[in-house]
């Protein structure tokens, strides 16, 4: 590794020709402990910013700290800042989520879909439940071939008042998810509901687990791909979004 990149190490080392004592080794050991690698590459200012939607999407209740969560109070200001900053030309949204709060998820999805800058989503691993509307919220969506999306009815945890109105409320909440997904992707409401309510796909549960290729075939996601294609597509969208320069006389 390049010792010059770390001032602390080169100080400890003294002359480079002296015996390679303990200090550089300790420096490397320290770094391995931190990230599992010895050096990270540097690069210039990026015109693409990215947001990761990971773990559970947290709603109004704070989840215990052992849960990995995406908090809307973190993501929403980031999206506002990205929308405002003229140096940021595009957003990449990376998903690996198990789902979570419906309202927080829909809020993030609406924020992403209403951005004026080009957005591309990439589903890696899993984009389940409320991850589905977030995945379709962008201008163009990718899914890794091995990634899956579970589509199932909305459900509640905790104490529920057992009255018909509760069921109606739940049904309306589900309609909001369905209408968002069908509006922002090419899947029809009929097909999406069918996937949501189908039996026999999930063990002792209703819903469907849609794997990469199937998600594209059903029309939920635009294309199969990974990081490379996602960045390439985003750069294309950025170019299209730029006002054309050749109109100058």
């Amino acid at each position, binding site marked *: 590794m390049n010792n010059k990149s*770390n001032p602390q190490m080169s100080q400890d080392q003294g002359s480079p020709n002296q015996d390679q004592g303990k200090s550089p080794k300790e420096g490397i050991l320290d770094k391995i402990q*931190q990230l599992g690698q010895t050096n990270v*590459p540097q*690069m210039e200012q990026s015109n693409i910013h*990215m947001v990761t939607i990971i773990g559970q999407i947290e709603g109004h209740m704070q989840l215990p*700290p*052992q849960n990995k969560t995406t908090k809307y109070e973190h993501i929403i200001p*980031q999206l506002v800042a990205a929308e405002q900053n003229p140096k940021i030309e595009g*957003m990449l949204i990376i998903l690996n989520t198990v789902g979570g709060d419906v309202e927080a998820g829909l809020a993030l999805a609406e924020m992403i879909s209403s951005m004026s800058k080009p957005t591309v989503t990439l589903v890696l691993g899993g984009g389940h439940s409320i991850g589905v509307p977030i995945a379709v919220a962008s201008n163009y969506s990718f899914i890794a071939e091995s990634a899956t999306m579970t589509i199932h009815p909305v459900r509640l945890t905790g104490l529920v008042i057992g009255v018909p109105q509760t069921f109606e409320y739940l049904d309306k909440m589900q309609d909001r998810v369905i209408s968002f997904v069908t509006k922002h992707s090419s899947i029809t409401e009929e097909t999406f509901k069918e996937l949501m309510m189908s039996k026999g796909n999930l063990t002792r549960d209703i819903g469907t687990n849609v794997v990469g290729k199937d998600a594209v075939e059903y029309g939920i996601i635009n294309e199969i791909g990974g990081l490379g294609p996602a960045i390439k597509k985003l750069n294309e969208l950025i170019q299209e979004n730029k006002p054309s320069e050749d109109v100058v006389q």
Partner: protein
Amino acid sequence: MILYTYQAQELIFPVQDTEYEGVEMVDIPGGQLQVQRQGEDNSYRVVRLLSTDPNLYLDERYQPGQPYFFDNR
């Protein structure tokens, strides 16, 4: 012990308040850092970086596990 119940896990095993202690959010240029206090000596380490700028994730100072020092403490 095997539990067979309709109760939520949190109702049976309440979350200890101490688990929330020692975790703090710090504002940095371009984002936020989640830092955790290490033991008794008031030293902090970086847990997570929250930012949309991919370059900040390459900054050595913000790598998970890096010690973090407060300016005003």
